[in-house]
Every structure is written in C-alpha cells, then in structure tokens.
C-alpha cells in the first residue's frame, strides 16, 4: 500500500512540477506572476477533450493540439494585456500583473462555464491497459501523465541550458538591463516565454484530463499546487521545481491516506507557509 501511494504521489508530483516550471519560467523572464495559470490548464484539458472526441485524435495528437492552442492563447494574452509591463514605465508592475491576471482568471472561468457548460466531461482513456511497476498496478493514464511531464520538464531544462533563446531567457532572469544591452529583445522573448509557460500548463491539463474529470473550475487546485511548487522549490529554479513537485505529490498522497482526505489541500498550504516563513528562498534558491 505504501509503495502504491508513493508511486501515485510521484506521478502526480511530476504533473505539479510541470505546472510549477511554467510559472517559474514566467517569473524569471517577465518578473510577474500569473494567476490565470490554472485556467490554461483547464483550457488545455478541454482542448484535448474536443480534439479526441470531435476530431478523433489519439493522445499523441491531442496533447500537442492542446499545447499549441494554449501557446497561442498565452502569447495573445501577453501581447494584448501584459505587454505594458515592459513597454511603459510602470511603478508597480507586480501589482499590475496580479490584478490583471486575477481578472483573467475570473474571465476564463466564467467563459468556460458559458462555452463548455458547467457539467463534467471525461475524455476517453489515453491508454486503456494497466501497467505494473514493482508489482503495483497503476493505470496507464497516470503513467503516461508522469512520463510525459518528466520529459517536458527535462526538455525545458535542456532548452534553457543549451539554446541561444534559453541563454537569452537566463540572461533576462539575471538582469533585465544587462540582457537588453546585449541585444535580447525583451518584448519578443516575453511573449514567447509566456506562450511556452501557458503551453506547459495546457499540456499538464491535457495529460491529466482522463484521470480527473473536466469542469470549468478545475483550474483552481493546480494553480495552488504550482504556487506551492514554486515557493518550495525556489523562484526560477527548474531542479527545485522538480524536487518540490515530487515532494508535494508524495506528501499529499500519504497525508490524504493516513491523516484525512478533507485536509489534503491544507497539507500543501502548510508546507508552503512553513517554507515561506522559515526558508523564503526555497530549497534550491539563492538568497
């Protein structure tokens, strides 16, 4: 039983890490926080659902479809609503972004209720057969979600480490002014980074759609989880996000089983509160 809980915790933790990494990227490049991150998760889930039911796509097409749609949506949101952060001189860009993305959260959620309907949808299973890991039976969907999340997180880490664009993002994270002087186009990098962050959230939503059913308000929980991941792992650290996601997933699954499932969400909050108050830089962050 313990082993099964831990394996389940790891798979869900990888999805949390995928959410947290997107947020960490956005925070690094644009210095803002996206409250609407969970809504892109929700939209990704719905896109995967419609791609698989209406177009009849298999998961290896429907998940990328969801990612492309959320990428475009994220880029458009950045261009239209968040770009004043770097085009205008603003006294408090963080407050602007907090209010704006909170407005977006309300907007997307209400829009989803109107467009997709308030009832629950459940896409068909991506992988119908079960998988045995160390003698424990795990559903194929969960394994797929965990594996693809891990691939995406590691892929993003390699992208940021190796390519020129990733180098530009790292430079922007360290010093905006310095990056600008050295020819990084902040405006362009911002919308690309915002799109990528949203696409990662969309991918997470699409991957777990068959496990948890879809409804317009599902964005709240993963949003909270991604903040917890970011606060525990340290701002802008991908390795930190990965470890924090796994930690959170395992602790939560064990806590829900051994303490009480009603307090499942409170466990993560308490963990985050503890880290924020006593180790504000997170696990891997520098002071």
């Amino acid at each position: 039983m313990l082993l099964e809980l831990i394996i389940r915790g790891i798979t869900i933790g990888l999805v949390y890490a995928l959410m947290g990494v997107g947020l960490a990227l956005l925070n690094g490049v644009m210095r803002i926080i996206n409250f609407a991150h969970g809504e892109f998760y929700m939209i990704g889930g719905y896109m995967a659902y419609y791609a698989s039911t209406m177009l009849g796509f298999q998961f290896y097409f429907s998940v990328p479809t969801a990612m492309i749609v959320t990428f475009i949506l994220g880029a458009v949101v950045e261009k239209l609503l968040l770009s004043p952060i770097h085009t205008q001189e603003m006294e408090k860009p963080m407050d602007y972004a907090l209010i704006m993305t909170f407005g977006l959260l309300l907007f997307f959620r209400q829009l989803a209720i109107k467009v997709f309907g308030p009832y629950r949808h459940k896409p068909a299973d991506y992988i119908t057969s079960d998988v045995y890991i160390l003698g424990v039976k795990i559903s194929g969907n969960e394994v797929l979600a965990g594996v693809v999340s891990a691939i995406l997180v590691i892929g993003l880490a390699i992208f940021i480490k190796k390519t020129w664009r990733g180098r530009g993002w790292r430079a922007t994270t360290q010093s905006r002014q310095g990056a600008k002087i050295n020819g990084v186009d902040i405006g362009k990098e911002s919308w690309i980074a915002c799109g990528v962050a949203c696409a990662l959230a969309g991918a997470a939503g699409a991957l777990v759609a068959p496990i948890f059913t879809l409804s317009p308000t599902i964005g709240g929980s993963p949003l909270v989880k991604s903040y917890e991941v970011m606060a525990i792992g340290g701002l802008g650290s991908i390795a930190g996000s990965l470890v924090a996601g796994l930690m959170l997933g395992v602790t939560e699954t064990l806590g829900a089983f051994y303490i009480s499932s009603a307090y499942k969400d409170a466990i993560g909050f308490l963990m985050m509160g503890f880290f924020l108050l006593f180790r504000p830089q997170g696990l891997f962050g520098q002071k």
Partner: protein
Amino acid sequence: MKKNEIIVAVTIIVLGLIAPKALPSVWITVLSMAFYYAILTIGWNIIFGYTGLFSYGHAAFPAIGGYTSALLAQHIGLSPFLGLVAGAFIAGLLGIVIGLLILRVHGFYLCLVTWAFAEVVNVIITAEHQITGGTGGLLAPTFFSGPNAELFGYFMGLGLMIFAFLISILLYHSRWGLNLFAVRDDIDAAESMGIKTRFWKVFGFAFGCSLAGLAGAYFAHFLGLIDPGIGGLDQMGYVCLIVIIGGLGTVYGPILGSFFVVITKELISGYASGYSLLIFSVIMILAVRFLSGGFMEIIQVISPRLNNRYLKFVNK
C-alpha cells in the same frame, strides 16, 4: 474632512433613507448587499489601496467575523449587535497575527501567504461540520424580528456603511493615513523618516481585516444564515473588481464600485443571469489596462471641466 466628503456622506444618508420608500421591496435586500460589499471593500481598500499590501485572503475575514458572531449567538446567546463588535474584534485580532506573519514576506509571497490562510480557513469551516454546519451553513439570529425586520436591518447596514466610510475618510486625511501612504509609496524613505513601518503595516492590515469582520457579522445577521461560500474565491474576485472598478486608493472608490456592481448585477439578472461575473471581469480587465484609476479617474478628469463651466455660467 473636506466639504465634498461631507456633502457626499449626507447625500448617501438622504438617498439611503428615501430608497426603501421609493423602490420596490426587493431592492432592500439588494441595497443591503451593496452595503455589505461597501464595508468589505473599504477594508480591502485600506489594506491594498492605502497600505499597499496585496491581501488575497480578504474574503476569509468576513467568514471569520460572521461565524464568530453566529457561533457566539448560538452558544452563549450573545445579541447580534454585540456580535458585530465581537466579529470585528476577532477578525482584527487574527488580522494582527497574519499581519505579523507577513512582515517577513514581500510582494507576491505576501499574496500567497494570505491566500493560503484564506484557503485553510475555508477548509476548516467546511471540514469541521459538527461545529460550523459545513457546506449547509449555520443559522444566525437576525437583528430584529417582526414584519419590518428587513427594513431595520437595511438601516443598520446603512449606518454601518456610513460609519466605515467616515472612518476611511478620517484615516485618509489624518497623520496615521499619511504614515500608511508612506509605507505604500516608498518603504525605505518612510523608514528613514522615522516612521515605524512594521507597526503601520500591521496596523493597516488589521484595520482592514476588522472592517471585513464587521461586514461578515452584518451579513450573517442580516440574512440569518452564513455558509462557507462567503469566503470563496468568487467573493475575493468581487472584492478585487469592485475596488478596481471604483478606484483604488480613493475614498469614494469602494462605495461607488460596490453600488455599481451590485445594482448592475441585479438589473441584468433578468436578461443574462450567470453572465454578471463574466461582464464584470471584462470591465475589470479593461479598467486595469486602460484606466487604472477606475471611475474615480473619470470623475477627476471630468470634474474640473464641469467646475469651470459652472463658474463661467455663474459669472455671466
């Protein structure tokens, strides 16, 4: 207090006294909800607009105030009027505790800690259903009984709102308020001028929270029922968009915003029920993008022109 502010306060009182006679009786409840939101958002305006702390857990404080008052009334038979004081007091006390905790964090993390607090409060209220009644809610005694109970409750709300409004005006013009603005605008400069920034942060936060507790206790005893929905994310959304639409950091903003939002919601509920939050969120996004001062900015731009025209008219 300036002349304008006194005029506005008196106008609100007069309109508030006339309204139950002039409007159909359904509007009594609607306007009482506007009073509730006005008190609540005046609190948030003091926290975010005056002191500059983005509290994302403001909706938890009316829940705390309301449940405190309702539970006290249920178990020791406290009168609802003292319940208002008790709710405000407990919410203020918790505000001091949270305010001391968030001294260590800045900006976005402050937002997270307050949000975490609100979620934990919500989880506890829902999970401890033997005490709080869970999602079904908890019955609270109303202020008055008899045929005119709702009308008296309405006047009670009007009085409380005027009270909160006057307090926010006094704070705005006093030295205390200046300390809060200094903390908001430039904390290092404030520190170097000898302002005790840590104290004023906690003060601003707890003050706003205590107003929220008052609002929550009023809500519980006006409707006679309180449920965990009062502390939900939607309510936080309403608080945020009311202040943004009305005008952040201004005295009239929260009142203007809450009347606009509540009345519009009631007016459109016949045609487009369920679309209200969607419409308001679009207005809020547009306001943040293009008109960061909300309604008050429009009024401030228009009013000198109106004033000039009036003076010309009088002189000729």
